[in-house]
């Protein structure tokens, strides 16, 4: 008899894990890796395995965290929280991770009890969120769907913040226009409730110039050259399409749990083939022009169909089934019996296309919300990065449709928010403190830690040894090249703030971000003229998705609180 014995090695129990030097060092290393990747000028990381295999160059949190093997449980909590956030919102992964690390680091320096810090962190978070959601918020812009400017800015900001895509400025323009066009394709024209967005299929084409990328309505199916040659002549009228989900290969499926005895001389293959040919006959008589099959079509049936000038394409794959069904309006057929006429769909036309070295069958729909984004990049790793970026951008656009606001990017939201919190903790601490038994002094300490976490996050955007300034009017982020002369005329040296809303010629005063300065009142409520300038010079704006960033902020603070609250770590050593 096998008896299941319990795990035998006792577990290791560490108390107050955050106070140990080892854990702090590990956190610092992780933070170092992540900060160096942050922003448009972030440094790339090359991930490779010493045993060989492919090498991957990236600066995205998704790829980085997926491939890093983190062992310490605290780091594991942090990284999984970030990964889970990214899988929900695609964007703001590094933002979340770095903010969380900064918070843990700063709060620990205050040496207040965990209970107080956690409570205050929560209050500050709620305060931030209500500010960012409020009307007076000075760092968010409404999205105007009548023009594409803001949306284009949003896509471009995402593309530029991923340097591992290796795009030039021109290529960024090209790709962001493509992404936006692809996204607009997926929005249905007749807007009933609820709006069901279509699908954008990203088709890989590696080794081509980025500017060769394009968007096509409908579905692209890759085919070999031989098959392309066999395609019959194109018809001018609309196509009738049959879409098969079941296999047309003539295999005998599912005989049940018992056994099937076949008498000598009975050929099941012939029997099934007869059935297939019967289907073929029906398709011919129903005047079907195109047969698409998820699985394999029997060669005889194929031959039969091509004799009757019906185009047959098999092995389409399960991923394309839903888009194909959407494009043509056909219902996937699941039986070998008589096909009901309602299952047929139709398409406008088809054509064969050659992109790079690949041949495609292009199904052109009458009107549908499915499009194919043919994405080109020079090499594999850059293509992978670009594909991920495109997916992020498409997802962010979807989120923006639901919640039509964008936040100022380029570090301006962070510095502005920090300035606003500082100001409010000095002026109206009661608005943050909700009589919870915390003193004002404690609030000051934690607010300082919170603000400097935000500011050093913004500061992580600078990688080339430059200085970071903030203006004393709007609280925006300004960066200047390294080694500024001592007595300088700031307006000449600076051109635009991080997000690009303000120019340096607007009679502002600046101070270094890292230096201590008195709290000032940042201008809330973006002035209308600033927005109008925005509309004209829109291409220089950097904006972030509000939904993703807010959730990132929440997850960062919640995770930091979680980690700060740990009294013990119990490690199972089995």
């Amino acid at each position, binding site marked *: 008899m096998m008896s299941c014995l319990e795990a035998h090695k006792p577990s290791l129990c560490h108390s107050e894990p955050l106070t140990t030097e080892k854990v702090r060092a590990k956190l610092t290393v992780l933070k170092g890796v992540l900060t160096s990747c942050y922003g448009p000028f972030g440094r790339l990381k090359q991930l490779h395995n010493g045993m060989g295999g492919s090498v991957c160059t990236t600066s995205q949190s998704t790829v980085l965290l997926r491939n890093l093997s983190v062992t310490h449980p605290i780091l594991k909590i942090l990284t999984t929280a970030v990964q889970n956030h990214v899988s929900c919102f695609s964007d703001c992964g590094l933002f979340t991770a770095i903010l969380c690390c900064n918070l843990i680091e700063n709060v620990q320096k205050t040496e207040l009890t965990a209970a107080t810090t956690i409570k205050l962190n929560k209050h500050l978070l709620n305060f931030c969120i209500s500010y960012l959601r409020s009307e007076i918020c000075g760092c968010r812009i409404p999205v105007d769907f009548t023009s594409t400017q803001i949306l284009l800015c949003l896509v471009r900001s995402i593309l530029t913040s991923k340097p591992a895509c290796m795009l030039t400025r021109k290529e960024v323009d090209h790709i962001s226009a493509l992404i936006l066009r692809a996204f607009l394709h997926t929005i249905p024209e007749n807007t009933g409730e609820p709006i069901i967005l279509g699908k954008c299929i990203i088709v890989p084409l590696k080794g081509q110039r980025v500017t060769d990328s394009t968007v096509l309505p409908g579905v692209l199916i890759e085919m070999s050259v031989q098959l392309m040659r066999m395609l019959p002549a194109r018809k001018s009228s609309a196509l009738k399409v049959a879409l098969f989900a079941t296999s047309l290969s003539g295999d005998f499926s599912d005989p049940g749990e018992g056994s099937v005895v076949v008498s000598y001389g009975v050929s*099941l293959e012939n029997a099934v083939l*007869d059935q297939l040919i019967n289907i073929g006959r029906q398709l011919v008589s129903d005047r079907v022009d195109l047969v698409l099959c998820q699985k394999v079509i029997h060669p005889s049936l194929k031959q039969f169909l091509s004799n009757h000038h019906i185009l047959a394409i098999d092995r389409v794959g399960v991923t394309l089934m839903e888009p194909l069904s959407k494009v043509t309006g056909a219902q996937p057929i699941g039986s070998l019996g008589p096909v009901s006429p309602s299952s047929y769909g139709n398409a406008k036309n088809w054509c064969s296309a050659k992109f790079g070295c690949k041949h495609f069958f292009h199904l052109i729909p009458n009107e549908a919300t499915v499009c194919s984004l043919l994405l080109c990049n020079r090499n594999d790793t850059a293509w992978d990065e670009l594909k991920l970026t495109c997916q992020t951008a498409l997802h962010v656009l979807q989120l923006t449709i639901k919640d039509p606001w964008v936040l100022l990017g380029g570090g301006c939201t962070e510095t502005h928010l920090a300035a606003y919190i500082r100001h409010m903790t000095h002026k109206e601490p009661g608005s943050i403190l909700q009589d919870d038994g915390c003193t004002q002094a404690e609030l000051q300490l934690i607010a300082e830690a919170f603000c400097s976490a935000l500011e050093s996050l913004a500061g992580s955007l600078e990688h080339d040894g430059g200085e970071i300034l903030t203006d004393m009017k709007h609280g925006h982020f300004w960066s200047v090249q390294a080694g500024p002369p001592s007595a300088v005329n700031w307006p000449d040296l600076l051109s635009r703030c991080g997000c690009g809303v303000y120019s340096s010629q607007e009679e502002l005063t600046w101070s270094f971000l890292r230096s201590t300065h008195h709290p000032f009142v940042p201008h809330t409520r973006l002035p209308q003229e600033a927005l109008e300038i925005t509309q004209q010079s829109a291409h220089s704006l950097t904006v972030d998705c509000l939904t993703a960033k807010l959730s990132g902020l929440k997850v960062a603070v919640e995770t930091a609180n979680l980690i700060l609250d740990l009294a013990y770590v119990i490690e199972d050593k089995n």
Partner: protein
Amino acid sequence: MAVAVSVKTALQVAEVLEAIVSRCVGPEGRQVLCTKPTGEVLLSRDGGRLLQALHLDHPIARIIVACVSSHLKKTGDGAKTFIIFLCHLLRGLHTITEKEKDSLISENIQTFERRWKNCCQWKFISQALLTFQTQILDGIMDQYLSRHFLSVFSSSTKERTLCRSSLVLLLEAYFCGRVGRNNHKFISQLMCDYFFKCMTSENGMEVLELVDDCFVELNVSVIGLPVSDSKIIDGLVLHRDFSVYCPADGDIRVAVVREIIQPVFSTSRSEFVLNSEAQFQTSQIWIMERTKSIMKYLLSQNVKLLLSTVKQPDLVIYYARLSGISVVDCLSSEEVSLIQRIISLSPFVLPQASLQCEISDTALVKFCKPLILRSKRYAHLGLISTCTFVPHCISLCGPVQGLVEQHENALHGAFKMLRQLFKDFDLNYVKKANDQNDALRPCIYKNNRKSNQVPKIGNHSIHRSYQDTGIKNSDKLEKTQYLKAHSNLVVSDVELETYIPCLTLKMMPPDRVQTDEIWRCLPPENKRITDDYELLIESNSTRNSLTENPGIEISYENFQVTNIAGKGSMLPVKYKSLDTCISQSFCSSSIPAGCVLPVGGTFEILLHYYLLSYAERCQQLEEIVVSKLIASALLGIPKILYKPKKGSHSFPQIYLRALHTLQTSQPMISCQAGLESVTGKYHVLTSVLQCLTKILTIDLIMNIKRQPLKNCDQDSEDELQH
């Protein structure tokens, strides 16, 4: 290898556990991160989970963990309190043995302690503890503590209505000790809303049972969103996506199947013989037609949604789509049974021959639609409930899996706790009731049995008194039998073993048992009889000490006779006094459903106070010791709870204030909002006492090479050998 068990080692082990557990207890408690060998990380403040995660090696620690987990299995709460309380008890025992030479208490107790040391002292203490737990504790709970009980039900009439504000307080206090300090308010609010949304009638017992049983099916975890995005979803969310989804309006009926709808060529253990190709083709066509007609038939019955426990083949999916029937397949049997429970729908059985018969196994649903939570798709049904449960689901969000799991466990535990709270809990204590209607039948039966014993007790006490005066003529065998019978009656299973060794203890326990017996039968309300009881106790104690036997002034008639008991004629009197009791009806006392006390150690302080006052009145030496031991150990929990507080909220201040209010019999005012279940607390107390007796009765732990064999196995082996 054998390890000798002593209080000292047990205390050392318990102290280590207490150190870990005490940091997670109460509203100021913190989280613990556990890793599994698989690499998963889990956040927890749950004592049971922590103890399990430690994988303790020490044999005593394993005993403790086993006791905790069996306690948790019963109640689902109180693991941390368990450890703290156990540790304090052990500490108390340790100090008693350490200080035994100091004559701090009284001469009598000193001699006792010497004896504890000389004979098998631990066994004796453990037995005293057990007697206390089974016989004295319940009485104190019912007589004294019950007057402080509050209730979560707002009205005192038979129609119990749940008071929302008390439930909020109760849940907040519960989650305070369960989830991270940021989230407890939110989670308790969520749970409260959920409970009230699910409940139709005033009494939520049925809802609680259902939610507790099917908790896994009723909540959806969404990982990656902040905790504050958790919400209550109207209707039932199945953890599967539609295989076919056809939007439908109006009259939607649902049917449940447990088998594949498509007929197959051959079922198991049968053979299908194919003789010709035509036969094969016709049978295939028949299968198709059959599937099609079943679908058509379902549609004709207005069935628009088919729920299946098995995976339906493509053919079925295809025809379902053609007929406009949505299909959700591969449902777990738990999910299906939950659906059946909610709408009392039995699975639809495929008709064998014709499809003409009307199937009644369908039910209406309000809606059925796909639900997307964090890019995962679920089937969302608006079931029309036929029971008191209104279907709702909770979607729990959190940045990491470990946190969501913690919240899930806490919520489940809260439902368990409520389920227990909403039930009456019978105490092992009998009091007189004025109306006979409430008295339960088995109860009366029990009482009768007890009363039947009275002569024996009397007899025995005579023996006993003779014995003490030196005439040792009593039959030992007879006493053993009596003891066994008695232990069967009052004490449950474990105690039997522990009772037998007490025979060696010069017959002290029977005497006490007898006293308790009388005391338990006496109604607390009746002043006169209570007085009687106290006098009886006194008389007993006089017999114990045997020094100043007839020296007390007695005014009551029956006690006059008792006083002569020393001379051997106590029996008739006792019989009489008990007889008067029996002539009235009894009911066993209980902690009524919904009893709560304010949090912050109120239960502990109250019980502490009443135990001390009991000890003052009590004359039995070991009872005094045990009561005092438990009373002081009880304070350990409030001490930890108030540790971070300063000034007037520090523990000594709170304690003194509480004592003062109790002494002046003012109502207790708690400085903390929040309530906790009395039954839960009571269970912890009894479980700890049982655990302690278990530890104390073991003297040696032996290491064996294989798993201990089950008893039945040994029996069969013996049979084989003979």
